[in-house]
């Protein structure tokens, strides 16, 4: 592990780029109006980002080849989706998800 000062500098540097990514749109859009086309484009961001974040966790990357399947996460996703449809309650969904992966790992010995 690099020195304390190097790590601290890294933390501050990554903190600044992350912060700027978070606030610059807020600062700019205080002054400017988005066009109708851009707003329509952005209306797809929530479902696109959430499904991308989910699906990325179902695969293991091997650059240059098709990804392999992350079986633990894929199998645990099934009861999680079912619990979402039945309960429509985020807390239930999260608890069912965690228990599902715990059980899948125990059964498959992963």
């Amino acid at each position, binding site marked *: 592990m690099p020195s304390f000062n190097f790590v601290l500098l890294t933390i501050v540097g990554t903190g600044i780029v992350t912060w700027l990514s978070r606030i610059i*749109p807020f600062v700019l859009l205080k002054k400017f109006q988005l066009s109708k086309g851009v707003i329509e484009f952005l209306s797809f961001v929530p479902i696109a980002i959430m*499904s991308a974040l989910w699906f990325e966790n179902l*695969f293991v990357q091997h650059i240059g080849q098709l*990804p392999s399947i992350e079986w633990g996460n894929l199998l645990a996703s099934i009861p999680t989706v079912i619990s979402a449809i039945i309960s429509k309650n985020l807390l239930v969904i999260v608890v069912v998800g965690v228990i*599902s992966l715990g059980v899948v790992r125990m059964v498959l010995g992963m």
Partner: protein
Amino acid sequence: MNGELTVSAASKDTLPTVFGYIGIGLAFGIVGKAAGLSPLLVTLMSIITYAGSAQFVIVSMLVTHSPIFSIIFSVFLVNSRMILMSTTLAPYFKRESMLKNVLVGSLLTDESFALGMNKLNYSDSHLNFPWFNTANVISYLTWIISSLVGAVLGNFISNPEKFGLDFALVAMFIGLLYLQLISDRSINFNLQLIVVGFVLLAIYFGLIFIPSSLLILLVTLVACSFGVVMKHAFF
């Protein structure tokens, strides 16, 4: 979830996501400690960088002694999706002061963004500072405390994955996606399903040649364009 935009409504709405932060925060603390970071540095990273999955990237790059600029650039790539999320969110805060806008942006996360987008379906498309800031601050404090606890406990727990806690985040994305699908009436339901299917294919084939740090952003951009095209062509 209901239409109320108060501090107490926000606390209730945020509760389910807290479990995700605790699970991943503990895991981050344990991993950071195991990689050789002191509990102080682990906590400082959670306070200053505050970037969820990107913090795992930082730790793994520190371990391999990567140059500082490549670490910063990777984190920028992983977090560049924040730009899209704050651009989507900012119009709802146009009437609030600049300081409040910056505060909401500073603590924005994937989860508070998704919660906010869900809330819009109940609140007649309104958001305000007290509600969003409460959701943000609860998430921020939970993340800091859990990563500190994880780093301190790190000596005793070697394998956090055994408990399935790392799935809390994925489960949350599944839940928020589903709730968004059934409650967002501004986009046709079938069109939303088609976009989700498109994202699945794009992620699968994208993983062949696009580094995962860049993939989420690229797939989101392409999927949004695809959605707009489909909407005009068929819906």
